């Protein structure tokens, strides 16, 4: 097959949309997908009606993105059938999906930053060897699409110069230019300001009114309630239920999302808070791209209490953690540990935070908390390598480090109990124990814990929770960040809910219901009024 024959299977087809053959734009039946031993999608059935906005909600790891990646041809399902417009299809790759009229707007945009809007739209869908005719046609086509869907973007603007919201429109334009009849949007509002999100919703509504089908992946209930016609709830790789949005309410969806999982029993007595050990005041933090992620956050944690920060991931928790632990410069605001204000400037702020008595169990242990190519004992001292007990002067006392590692392994029951094994060869739960053992073992005053049980097996979860409680009872101040609401509820003595870079509410785990907190996490309820009032 010559290249030119195969070059443009995704020619725009907007002009001649075929008569609908079926009521359903997309039908998925008994879709299964495993990654290794992880069953990411279990017997998923899903029907998406043409000309509607269909939401798919679920917690992180519920399998939403995997399912849509299968539909878009990124992954191939292990079993199950896909019907597009009533016809069964084997979608082999994304090019094929596009040819079938399925377009996707990825969470991380697939745009070439130093190209113009027009060039990005045309890329991969050029008509001929020279780009001028393609650009010309695309310009005309874009004008038409812009008029039709009220999607205005300057075709000659360079991507890196335009706002994130505008970039997202380019992604939508790309899909429409390629003739997409069904548009999948993966967490589209995660990167948008509320105003931009509202603009997006209006565009999506227009698309629907013009007969397109929209699939919206999200975990924000507010969005589901605001614009979808129907909603499917996923949990732990399974499709729980599909509802008509107008006939349900956020509480019901929240309950379905979280499910009635068996709450892990954590035996803990009442908290005995002492003096304030960690105090964060008016903290403003930006991410690597310069986007402000933490917006004027203040909080304090006292000795002998666990403060949990609940929130959907991506609402500034990571940046908050990194700043408090000295890994990321704050724009403004202060962090005070044990009465001492931390200087976070320079690229070794984490060392000063530790010196002040703060220990840090990072959210992403593989990426940050461990060097997986190191032997276990080398990770047992990471961050504390300069402590005198690991050797005086410039030398590293390997024996002392290994003794320490062995102690930690014993205390935290790390398996296999071999401190010479490469860290990558430990299971996720045991890797987490290595980190916890190291960070808890030095009697810190303040312990910052991010996602302590992510990717950890059930047995280890209980152990880890008990260790955290024990730290609290020993009079430590603990700040816990987790996207697992269960975990926050069972561990924390006070719950702060973070949404869009701010603490939007506080809840008492003893009295607040899951639904209540869930709504706050989604930016509704208690603080909803405040949120809606913002421009």
């Amino acid at each position, binding site marked *: 097959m010559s290249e030119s024959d195969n070059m443009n299977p995704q020619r725009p087809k907007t002009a001649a949309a075929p008569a609908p053959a079926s009521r359903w734009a997309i039908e998925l039946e008994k879709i299964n997908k495993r990654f290794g031993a992880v069953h990411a999608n279990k017997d998923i059935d899903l029907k998406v009606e043409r000309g509607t906005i269909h939401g798919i909600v679920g917690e992180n790891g519920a399998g939403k993105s995997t399912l849509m990646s299968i539909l878009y041809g990124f992954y191939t399902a292990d079993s199950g059938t896909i019907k597009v417009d009533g016809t069964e299809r084997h979608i082999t790759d994304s*090019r094929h999906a596009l040819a079938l009229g399925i377009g996707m707007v990825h969470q991380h945009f697939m745009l070439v*930053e130093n190209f113009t809007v027009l060039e990005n739209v*045309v*890329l991969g869908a050029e008509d001929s*060897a020279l780009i*001028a005719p393609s650009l010309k046609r695309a310009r005309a086509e874009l004008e038409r699409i812009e008029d039709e869907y009220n999607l205005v973007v300057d075709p000659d603007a360079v991507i890196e110069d335009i706002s994130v919201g505008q970039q997202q429109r380019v992604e939508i334009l790309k899909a429409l230019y390629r003739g997409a009849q069904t548009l999948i949007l993966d967490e589209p509002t995660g990167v948008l300001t509320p105003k931009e999100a509202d603009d997006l919703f209006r565009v999506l509504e227009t698309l629907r009114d013009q007969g397109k089908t929209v699939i919206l992946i999200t975990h924000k209930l507010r969005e589901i309630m605001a614009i979808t016609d129907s909603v499917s709830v996923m949990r732990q790789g399974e499709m729980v239920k599909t509802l008509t949005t107008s006939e349900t309410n956020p509480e019901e969806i929240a309950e379905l999302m979280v499910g009635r999982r068996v709450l892990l029993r954590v035996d803990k007595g009442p908290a005995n808070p002492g003096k304030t050990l960690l105090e964060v005041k008016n903290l403003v933090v930006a991410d690597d791209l310069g986007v402000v992620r933490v917006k004027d956050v203040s909080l304090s944690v006292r000795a002998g209490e666990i403060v949990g920060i609940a929130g959907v991931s991506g609402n500034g928790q990571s940046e908050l953690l990194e700043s408090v632990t000295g890994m990321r410069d704050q724009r403004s605001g202060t962090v005070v540990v044990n009465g001492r204000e931390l200087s976070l400037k320079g690229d070794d702020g984490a060392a000063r935070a530790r010196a002040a008595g703060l220990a840090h169990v990072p959210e992403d242990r593989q990426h940050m908390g461990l060097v997986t190519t190191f032997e276990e004992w080398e990770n047992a001292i990471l961050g504390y390598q300069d402590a005198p007990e690991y050797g005086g002067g410039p030398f590293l006392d390997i024996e002392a480090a290994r003794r320490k590692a062995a102690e930690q392994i014993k205390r935290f029951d790390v398996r296999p109990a071999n401190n010479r094994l490469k860290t990558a060869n430990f299971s996720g739960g045991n890797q987490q124990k290595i980190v916890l053992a190291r960070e808890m073992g030095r009697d810190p005053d303040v312990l910052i814990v991010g996602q302590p049980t992510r990717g950890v097996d059930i047995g280890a979860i209980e152990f880890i929770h008990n260790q955290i409680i024990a730290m609290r009872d020993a009079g430590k101040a603990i700040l816990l960040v987790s996207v697992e609401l269960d975990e926050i509820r069972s561990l924390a003595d006070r719950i702060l809910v973070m949404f869009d870079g701010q603490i939007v509410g506080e809840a008492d785990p003893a009295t607040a219901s899951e639904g209540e907190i869930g709504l706050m996490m989604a930016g509704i309820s208690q603080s909803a009024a405040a949120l809606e009032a913002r421009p």
Partner: protein
Amino acid sequence: MDFQVILSILDATLRLSTPLLLACLAGLYSERAGVFDIGLEGKMLAAAFAAAAVAAVYGSMWLGLLAGMAVSLGTTLLQGVAAITLRGNQLIAAVAINMLAAGLTTFLGQTWFGQGGRTPALGPNGRFAPIELPFVAELSGIPILGPLYAEVISGHYLLVYIAFIMVPVTWFVLFRTRFGLRLRAVGENPKAVDTAGISVNRMRYQAIIITGLLAGIAGAYFSIAQGSGFGNNMTAGKGYIALAALIFAKWKPVPAMFTCLLFGFLDALQIRLQSARLPLIGEVPVQAIQALPYILTVILLAGFIGKAVGPKAGGVPYVKER
């Protein structure tokens, strides 16, 4: 300096910047597609040898040129297999290529021709001759422009003109064709290209094929145009200067031409003047002029004058997530 000296320096500037320009454009295709290439030197050296050897044996400059391009292409593809298909370290692959070329050219030269690594001197058919452009006589009457045309513009080897024609050609290919659009995209955000249904590795191979061919012409220029036969380490670091020029030109074809002309001019200057006495600065050692391209590049890279930001995906093998 009298006018004649200026003319002769400018003439030498064109001659000396030609291989730089060809190599620089060669590197441009590769790096724009996201494959760092510090192996231009080796490709040129291999091509210079192959061109001279074939031209000497068959007495044909055309066969020589073809051989130079073919060998450079082969070298490039070897580097490509390591850096693209096997996802090896692009830098290490290029270092190996440079060394391989340095060793193999001298070794084979000595073995085949027994002249200490040199290839036999080329006859008239084995070597490109300067081309006289039309209207030299007619224009000779015009002051300044006439001699400028006759001495500087006219009277170069065909490959010189090819090199300079390649500048607008490259510009056109890069910015006006589908191929160029995809090539630039693949060096910036391969994932965007992949999701658009285009094979990243295939694009990269297509790019480095052009790199190989252009570097081949550059190499041949040394041995069968500028020189008459191959000598040990004939390219003498010009591949690295071309790399410096590429960075200095911020990976753009037209600035690449001007940078290569500047570096060629510096080269011409230092050949003519063993040391220059400049007003205000005093005596400038010739080595300072030699080092200038490198120093300028370092300063530019460090962001002290402007900022040189290369293709974003440069140097990273593309791994498709599946």
